Structures are given as C-alpha cells and as structure tokens.
C-alpha cells in the first residue's frame, strides 16, 4: 500500500533543511518572536479574546509544515508516513475550522448603527 523502502542515505532528512543545525540562531528567533508576540497580543482588544484564541488555534496549525515534511519523505517506512498523514489531517482541521469560525465571530461585532439612537 504505502512505500516501505528503508533508508539508504542516513545523514540528511529529506526536506527538513537539516544541514548544519543552527541552535543559537533558532533560539534567537524564538526569543524575538516571543517578544513580538507578547507585545502584539497585549494590544488585542479584550472584546476579541475569543476570536483571538480561535485565530491562534489556526496559526498553531502551522504544525502542518512539519507534517508535510514527514509525510513526503520518500525514504520513510510506511508507518511514519501514516503518522505524518494523520498529523496533516489534524492540522488541516484546525486551519479550516479556526479561520472560518474566527471570521464568523468577527462578522458579528458591530458598531452602533447611525441614527438608531
């Protein structure tokens, strides 16, 4: 059913961009992104905390990137591909439902209609 070839060339994971690992670079990115996140989120209106959480749900489904890399590996045994595919399914669920429901909620937030008062 699924490709069951074992690996021939250990050393490089396909698609993962694994060349030399840049630990420090990765940590710097993490630190900076966290600060940006904290500052941006602090300004989010309290009115919108529920939609915010749905939106970040969808954003955390960025795990789909890792899931695609795992699923597409041509040297992986079938069960690993399967794990990746399930992860794609889970992430896609979050992407689709997260963005849709956020938009659905945001559409409901309306200002006072003019002249209605």
């Amino acid at each position, binding site marked *: 059913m699924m490709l069951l070839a074992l690996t021939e060339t250990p050393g490089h994971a396909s698609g993962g961009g694994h060349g030399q690992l840049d630990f420090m670079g990765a940590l710097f990115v993490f630190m900076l992104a966290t600060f940006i996140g904290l500052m941006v989120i602090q300004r989010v209106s309290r009115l919108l905390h529920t939609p915010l959480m749905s939106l970040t749900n969808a954003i955390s489904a960025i795990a789909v990137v890792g899931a695609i890399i795992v699923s597409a590996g041509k040297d992986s045994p079938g069960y690993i591909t399967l*794990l990746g595919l399930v992860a794609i399914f889970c992430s896609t669920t979050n992407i689709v439902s997260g963005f849709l429901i956020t938009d659905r909620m945001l559409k409901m937030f309306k200002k006072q209609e003019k002249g209605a008062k």
Partner: protein
Amino acid sequence: MSAETLVQLLYLVSTALFILSLRWMSDPETARKGVFSGVAAMTLAVLGTLTGVIATGGTHYWWILGAFALGAAVGYPLAQVPLTAVPQRTALSHAFGGLAAGLVGTAKFFLYFGQKNEAALAPFIVVALVAEILLGFLTFTGSILAAGKLQEVKWIPQRPVTYPLQNVSNLALFALALALGVALVLHPLAPWAPWAFGGIILLSLAFGVLLIIPIGGADMPTVISILNAYAGLSAVAMGFVLNNKLLITAGALDGSSGLILSIIMCKAMNRSFFNVLFGAFGQTTTASAEGEQKAYKSDTVESAAQVMEQANLVVIVPGYGMAVAQAQHKVREVYDLLKKRGVTVKFAIHPVAGRMPGHMNVLLAEAEIPYEDLVEMDEINGDMPQADVALIIGANDVVNPAARSDKSSPIYGMPIIDADKAKTVYAIKRSKAPGFAGIDNELYFLDKTFMLFGDAKAVMGELARKLAGESGH
C-alpha cells in the same frame, strides 16, 4: 534562485503576515483583515513547504492531498457550531493541534532511530523532541478532557476530582517522564530508546488527564488559555527539531498569546498559575454553614420592569448562566426596549465570566448588541454608584462582595464588578444553590437586592414582554 532560497523567502513573508494578522486583532474594525492575512500566511507556508519537498524529491502527494481534503471536510462543520459551544470547539482544536505535534515528533524520532542517524539525534534535537511530544500529547488528552467537561459529556465528571496525594503523585509521574527524557538525550540510539520514548508518550497522555480532572468549570478560562500556550510551544519545539524558523515564529506567537490570556485570567481571579493547576478549589465547600438563616427577597418580573423603565442607567452583568440558557437574544430584546425609552444600558464584562476568555462578548455580539456598550470591569466600576439598576444574569462569583471584604472567603482578593454599589440590584438565578465556589453570595441578601428565580431565557423573555406591554399605558 535555488529552491531552498525560494522556500525561505516564502516563509519570511508568511511570518510577517502572521504578525500582521495578530496586530490587526487590536481593533474590531481591522480584525477581519487579520483573518485574511492569517489565511494568506498559512497558504504561503503550505506552498513553501510543498516547494521544498518537491525540490528535494518527496513523494506520497496523493495521500497528502487526501489528508488535506479529509481535514477540510471535518474542519468545516466544526466551524459551524453554535457560539455557546465555542469553548468546547476551542478545546477540541487544541487537542488536534497537540496530537499533530506529538505525532510529528514521534515520526521524526523513529525515522532517525531507524536510520541510526546519530547526527540528527544530537542532544539539542532530542531535548526538543522530548519537549514536543510531552507538550503535544499532554495537550491532546488534557484538551479532550476539557472539551468533554465543557460539553458536559456524561462519563466525564464535571466537579473537580481530587484524591489524597494528588499533587505528589502527579509530580512523581512528571519526574519519571523527565528522567526518561534525560536518559534518551544521553543515549538516543540505545536499544531501549524506543521503549523510553514510548514511556514518555504514555506518561504525557496520562499527565494531560491528571492535570485536568481536578479543575472545575470556573477555572476553565485559565486552563483553556494554558492549553493554548502549550499547543503553541509544542509547535516551537517542532521548529527546533526540524530547524524550521517559520514553525518557531508561528508557534511562539501562539504561545505568547496563550501566556498573556492565562495571565489576564489568573489576575482576574486573583490566583497564580500554580494555584489554578495544583490547588483544586474543590475541597473548600464548608464556608456556607453560617449563611443558612439569611433569606432571599424575591420579586416579580413586573415590578422589575417598572423599576427599570424609570431608570437612567441600567448595567447588565452577564455570566455563564446566560450562556447556558442561551438567553442572549432575549437580553437584546430587553436592551432594545429600554433604549427606546431613553434608558442607557451598558454591559459589565468580567474577564472570567463564562468558560473562555471573551466568551460573553462573543455571545452578546451574536445578539447584535453594539460592542461600544460592552464595557470592561475596570471601566464600568467607576460608574456603578450612578447605576439605578444592576441586572445580574447568571453571574455569581464575579459580583460577590465577599471578594472585597471577607478575608476567609476562597475568592477573597478577586477583582469583582461592584454590582452592590448600584441603587437597586436584580439577580436572575436558576436555583437557590450557591455558586461554583460553594459560598453564599452576600450580594443576594442586601436590602436593595431582589431575586428573580428562573431560567435566564424565560425571565428575560417575560421582562421583554412586560416592557413592551406597558408602552400602551
């Protein structure tokens, strides 16, 4: 331009769009732009990844497409749930997010292990892998349980479950998981490594359950926020494993969002993180003993309607009871009728009212109440002494003055909406039972307080009829 450069460029733009997406959430006016920006960012991320995979000779494209299609087919109905079910939908999607991260981590470990790939199992990577599966699987079971509690599934206990030595045994399990993790970092290619890895997975799954069972409904906003942060952090860990900076940034944005929401929720309950997670509120139910001789004063909806008509300012304080009864549309009718008579109506929103951050705002927005009239606790409290009527709909602990005055109360120190400072208080309550914390609410026994017992939707509907009917006089 090499394929790798193209991929990184796409990731770079995607990162910028994710940041903008959250930036635009600062204002309801621009928030929908934020969603479009998020969708664009995600599309670029997927396209970039596919480009990279194709360039390095990937495979299984039909399978991948199938997984996408299936995910979309399940995701679409999940976005159509009624808004009262949004807390459990959110918890469920944290579960999916955690599971995805956990599975990718598992796949990566066994792939490297199978290849005997020592370079890929460098200590830094293994630490990240362990963090990824720990957070991922813990978020998975924890969120499933939280969703079950929110949905009030029968076989999941609603009340906090506590037992002796709970925290000690949890910590022992956690220490065991950490020990396995350390062993794995030191000897990633040992013959027992897969067993150690499997052990960590099982412990994480168990840990998620154990962490959530002692948590009660009123703590759900905090817990959902914490699980939100974990889901983000597991994506960060995945980014470290795959050396993928887009995963790190997007995960960090999600993690910091969860962190800030948890801090806001904790502050609004005057509790620490630690206290929410490890200090199950469940046992403190003894405080109500001396309150027995006090009596409620109830009143008819008709006289409540008359008082409200004469008012200049009515402040409505909604709580979880409004969500349970789905009363928001009836609330809107009352709001309209009062406005028509020149009464100013404001809503006082406590940060932890409901079961997730911002829960009340979304329900009231659904009922098309303009968001200018939804006022935060800190802003409305200054106006409370001017309010002629405070109308409390299914809220309890968030208006309990014991939080200000009674040092022995479990909720002492929690910031509250000063409903007791209004000239008259009407409280709609389902039953005479005390609220979540098991303590009587002094507010209900004040001279100026009148109770309207009944289902919030029914009472608000009757109130609307009375207000409408009297216009003929």
